[in-house]
């Protein structure tokens, strides 16, 4: 499985996700600098977490206009799977590859802790390693993760199964007390219309082995590695 990780100035989870990709696929990803304008042939593109451009103007706003993002958008349109984690999710919304926006956390604080997520759509390239409705423990680490979309967009996401992941209690209930950042409908991760782009605020790459305190994130990378090898 050939993957590319896009590296922006201020990305800081690029190496973590590279480790996760190599652990699952056996092949290290190509690391691509944001100033490049072309992408090599690849089966998966990852936009990693971090604080690209210092979160200036809005989180992800500058990175979304980087030269490489034109190539990412073209590949996404052509069907290449694209995974945006944390800042990567913010960049995907800023680039218009996913609907909505990620606003300042409702409590205004930066939150770094494990949360529980319910897999609300396991029939995707990214989540097929999980059972429908499975509850997983994955860390979040962000200041701007409060998902917002207008009511028409939100309803459309809900009606078409594009909410892949939701913040939940440890027993899988969608409650406001399990919502760390004020996201509408407890949304933690969404898909684009074609299903080949997933953005999520939590960090699956941070929990891929028991030595790291858990391995609930591993199934996402295992699924991606398998799927693209078959394709």
């Amino acid at each position, binding site marked *: 499985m050939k993957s590319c990780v896009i590296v922006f100035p201020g990305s800081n989870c690029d190496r973590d996700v590279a480790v996760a990709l190599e652990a699952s696929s056996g092949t290290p990803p190509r690391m691509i600098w944001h100033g490049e304008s072309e992408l090599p042939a690849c089966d998966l593109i990852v936009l990693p977490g971090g604080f690209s451009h210092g979160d200036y103007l*809005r989180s992800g*706003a500058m990175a979304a*206009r980087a030269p490489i993002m034109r190539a990412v958008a073209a590949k996404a349109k052509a069907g290449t799977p694209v995974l945006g984690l944390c800042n990567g999710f913010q960049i995907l919304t800023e680039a218009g590859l996913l609907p*909505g926006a990620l*606003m300042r956390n*409702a409590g*205004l604080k930066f939150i770094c802790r494990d949360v529980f997520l319910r897999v609300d759509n396991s029939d995707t390239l990214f989540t097929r390693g999980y059972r429908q409705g499975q509850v997983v423990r994955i860390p979040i680490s962000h200041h701007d993760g409060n998902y*917002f979309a207008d009511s028409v967009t939100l309803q459309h996401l809900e009606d078409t199964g594009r909410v892949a992941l939701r913040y939940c209690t440890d027993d899988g209930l969608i409650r406001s007390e399990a919502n760390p950042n*004020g996201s509408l409908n407890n949304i933690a991760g969404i898909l684009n219309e074609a299903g080949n782009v997933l953005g999520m605020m939590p960090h699956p790459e941070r929990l891929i082995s028991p030595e790291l305190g858990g391995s609930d994130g591993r199934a996402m990378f295992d699924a991606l590695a398998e799927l693209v090898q078959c394709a």
Partner: protein
Amino acid sequence: MKARIHITLKKGVLDPQGKAIAKALSHLGFEGVEEVRQGKYIEIDLAGDNTDTARARLDAMCTQLLANTVIENYSIELDA
């Protein structure tokens, strides 16, 4: 030419920072603060003297980068 751009959150978009500011003002004893909405202010110096062209360019700058029109509105003031 000098342009002043105000960027504000759209109506209906929750503004937790504005709420926190309103609360802090009331803690300081300022009464009657009914709502606070916070936003951004950007100044741009532009070459050229055609205000129509400048306005069109500023509008494009706002939609392409300066504002996120999913959640924000913008207004442009231009000093000729």
